[in-house]
């Protein structure tokens, strides 16, 4: 009993001791929370600073390894307004050469949404090297300020603006959606900069620093456990031939239009010119960029930011006859020696569409002379053929076959924002003419590439590349290697076969295209020693003078280049587009120009401002 009570005492001693400890703790907690205000102050003082290390954006090289785009260092001065207490404002204003009012205005802006006094925002964008040097010395006096190093794009030659695209600040929406970006980050907005953004940008690094009340970095958060190193962007090795691109841009100066050249054996885009263009150096970050962009954006006469090569949908005109000829041959509707009447127009419809009284030409001849009547017969023969008792099925068949060549579809190129063009559907015509209100003759002008039919220049180039390959194409693309390991999307290595297969069909068409330059519609553009096969076209323009179209490939055997050119409001294709194509093909294959007068005439013509040298001669 005694022992037991003794035991009881002992355990309550321990229990009492613990209670005492607990009471001490509670007292201690109250002391820290309520009486001692030292630590409350401290809580305000601890701050993180995320120091972002921006990776170097990947360089871009042309197909021969020449540099198209590189970077230059630039320095942004960042501010966290909440931390600027004790900043030597006067000295800062002096270094930046701004007034006190400017300073206050900018701080105010940095405090307002979307910025915040607690968050860092840009105070001065892209300081000059001298300003940066002067600032760096005194930075310790500027509480709340630090310098963010970044890079901006530079272009050794002011070319290929549409193709390369530009880099700019990420939009608020994008920054909210994609966790990689924060407001103020740069992102590829158009062209290759956009489609290869992920490879080009690399990966940002972040250092998380802990700062004290004086805005001094006192340590690294968790010993740098969460810090990451920046990974530099990958270089792009693109398919563009810088020389050809530059030459194309020179030739199209003063003209509205586009030229696209493709290497048929690979689908590699050799050049992609859209005119009018702009100097890509104009759209390089900073204050200048915004001003220049606004200027380019509001140039409604020239629309320099508009990439005609991918986005302008033109009626193809006579070049479309090539596709008709191929389809009709495959269906056994025409042969090499087939001829149709042409009495200055398509006889069954009272001479419409109009023509030049060819009569009796065979298939190659119909292409060389571009007989409208011939292809009105051909188109109706396809649509009304016996295989399809209902002509609408025949039309659908024609449409699907045409689409296999690319028109009316997105080709799937590696450039953003390409338009599909248009091959009208049965549904569309039912709506326009009524269920029973149309026949093959109603839409006969489709056969000669007019009416609602539209293509973008890239698709025109792809059609001619397909013909050069005798029935297949590779999806056109402008990058053949990403990173030093030169990775490429497998889809660009796949042959795409169009619906018309058969060597002879192509030979007959190509014979016509060759004749087009040997006494046909583009005779003046023949190149000595090079067998070029081409086709002229005139795209009807309801708003003014017709657009001139020409497409060609060369040489005839083992073609090295397939090219399409469209010049707006230039009339007949043989006059403007064919010489430009001819010069570019010669430049690409021979590396020199043998016809300086032709070159001079093309270079100097200014169709936009009405300086048409040909017309002046008249």
């Amino acid at each position: 009993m005694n022992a037991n009570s003794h035991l009881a005492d002992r355990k309550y001693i321990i229990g009492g001791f613990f209670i005492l400890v607990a009471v001490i703790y509670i007292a201690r907690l109250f002391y820290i929370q309520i009486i001692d205000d030292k630590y409350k102050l401290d809580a305000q003082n601890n701050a993180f600073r995320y120091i972002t290390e921006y990776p170097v954006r990947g360089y871009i090289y042309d197909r021969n390894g020449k540099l198209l785009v590189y970077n230059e260092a630039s320095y942004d001065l960042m501010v966290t307004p909440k931390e600027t207490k004790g900043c030597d404002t006067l000295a800062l204003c002096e270094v930046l050469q701004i007034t006190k009012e400017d300073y206050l205005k900018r701080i105010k802006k940095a405090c307002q949404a979307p910025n915040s006094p607690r968050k860092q925002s840009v105070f001065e964008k892209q300081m000059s090297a001298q300003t940066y040097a002067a600032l760096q010395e005194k930075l310790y006096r500027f509480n709340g300020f630090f310098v963010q190093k970044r890079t901006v794009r530079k272009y050794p030659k002011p070319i290929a603006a549409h193709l390369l695209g530009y880099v700019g600040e990420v939009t608020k929406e994008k920054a909210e959606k994609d966790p990689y970006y924060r407001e103020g980050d740069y992102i590829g907005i158009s062209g290759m900069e956009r489609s290869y953004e992920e490879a080009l940008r690399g990966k940002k690094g972040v250092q998380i620093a802990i700062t004290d009340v004086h805005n001094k970095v006192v340590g690294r958060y968790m010993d740098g456990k969460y810090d990451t190193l920046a990974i530099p962007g990958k270089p792009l090795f693109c398919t563009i031939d810088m020389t050809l691109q530059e030459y194309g841009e020179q030739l199209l100066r003063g003209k509205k239009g586009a030229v696209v050249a493709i290497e048929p054996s690979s689908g590699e885009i050799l050049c992609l010119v859209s005119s009018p263009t702009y100097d890509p150096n104009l759209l390089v970050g900073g204050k200048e960029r915004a001003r220049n962009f606004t200027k380019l954006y509001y140039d409604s006469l020239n629309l320099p930011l508009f990439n005609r090569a991918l986005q302008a949908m033109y009626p193809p005109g006579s070049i479309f006859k090539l596709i008709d000829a191929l389809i009709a041959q495959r269906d056994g509707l025409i042969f090499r020696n087939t001829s149709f009447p042409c009495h200055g127009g398509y006889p069954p419809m009272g001479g419409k569409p109009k023509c030049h009284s060819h009569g009796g030409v065979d298939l190659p001849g119909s292409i060389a002379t571009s007989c409208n009547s011939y292809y009105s017969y051909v188109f109706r023969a396809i649509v009304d053929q016996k295989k399809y008792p209902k002509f609408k099925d025949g039309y659908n068949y024609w449409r699907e076959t045409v689409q296999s060549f690319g028109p009316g579809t997105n080709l799937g190129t590696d450039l953003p924002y390409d338009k599909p063009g248009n091959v009208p559907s049965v549904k569309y015509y039912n709506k326009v003419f009524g269920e029973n209100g149309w026949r093959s003759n109603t839409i006969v002008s489709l056969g000669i590439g007019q009416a609602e039919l539209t293509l973008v220049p890239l698709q025109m180039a792809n059609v001619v590349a397909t013909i050069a390959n005798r029935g297949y194409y590779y999806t056109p693309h402008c990058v053949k290697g990403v990173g030093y390991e030169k990775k490429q999307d497998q889809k660009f290595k796949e042959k795409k076969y169009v619906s018309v297969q058969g060597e002879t069909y192509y030979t007959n068409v190509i014979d016509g295209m060759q004749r087009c330059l040997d006494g046909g519609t583009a005779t003046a553009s023949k190149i000595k020693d090079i067998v070029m096969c081409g086709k002229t076209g005139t795209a009807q323009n309801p708003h003014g003078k017709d657009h001139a179209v020409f497409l060609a490939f060369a040489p005839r055997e083992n073609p090295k280049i397939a090219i399409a050119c469209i010049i707006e409001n230039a009339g007949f294709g043989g006059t403007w587009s064919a010489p430009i194509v001819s010069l570019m093909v010669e430049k690409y294959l021979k590396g020199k120009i043998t016809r300086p007068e032709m070159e001079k005439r093309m270079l100097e013509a200014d169709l936009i401002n009405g300086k048409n040298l040909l017309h002046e001669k008249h």
Partner: protein
Amino acid sequence: MKLFAYLKGDKVIWAIMMLLSLLSVLVVYSAVVTLAHKFKQGNSEYYLIKHFVIIVLGFGIAYVFHKIKYTVFAKVAQIGFILSVPLLLYTLLRGVSAGEASRWIEIPGIGLTFQSSDIAKIMLLLYVARVLTVKQDALQEFKGVVKLLLVPIGLICALILPANFSTAALLFVNCLCLMFIGRVRMKFMLYIIGACVGFAILLTVVVLNFPDAIPRGRTWKARIENFISGDTKTNYQSDQAKIAVANGGVIGKGPGNSTQRAFLPQASSDFIYAIIIEEYGLLTGVIMLFLYMVLLFRGIRILRDTDKTFGGFIAIGLSFSLVFQALINMAVAVNLFPVTGQPLPLVSMGGTSIWFTMAAMGIILSVSKSNEDTTAEKLETI
């Protein structure tokens, strides 16, 4: 609650376990919220799910243990206590070969790691409880106390000490408390305490003057010096903890809103109490303290009610050990004690440690269950 119908033993202890586990899930949830928000790193749900699974399995372990008759543990302890010696030795030597203090052993094949001291702790306490019950006669002489208690306790603590000083010291004090309650004569207790104070002074002197003489000596030296000097720069962690406490207020800043988590390197274990106060308030902090106190007094109650003293000693020994550890963890957070690295039992994140704590709880519950049974039996006989 229907759930309680399936659970035998002290319902209050069960309730404390559940409340503390709930708190631990809340804390891990805040940690996940913060991490996910600040660093946008993936697998944030992973931690939460993993922790939840660990807790559920922990309850499973407690359930199984509380179903076992506690006398079985007496037999297990006799063997287990002996087995824990080579286990600790293995951990120690493996650590030496790796060039650092090692506390963990990996169970081959399944990738789970556990601290060998967690097992040794439970085994030693069970062993001491048994000796205090069975060998009372031999303990009347100091020689017996030394042979049966001090040597085994000293051996286990000595084996834990190089890798984990605080756990060893805690366990030793724990055993002393158990001996104190277990009727070891007051005179002997005073001898032992006197010897301990002497040893502690000696160790402090050695650590401060010849830190390289002992493994981890440098770490200990730094911790002691930091605590004594109170220098703000080196006492960075405790200052950050105090900031957390100061800014929590009575009801806290809300889950995931801790800013101090970022500044406290062991926010999910060593300094968890400070973070809990910052996010869930002083009120929650005091309630937690209260819960641990209740746990302790339930242990004392079990001892009071038990006829067979072995069970009582087990219950009091294990509940002491948990509460004591909790108090040390909290003391660090409120800067009453140097940084030790003791997790908060049942609350801190940390896999297998939670399971050992749950096992200990299961054993306590098993004792309380047998108390209930005997009370029921008594009532029937009357």
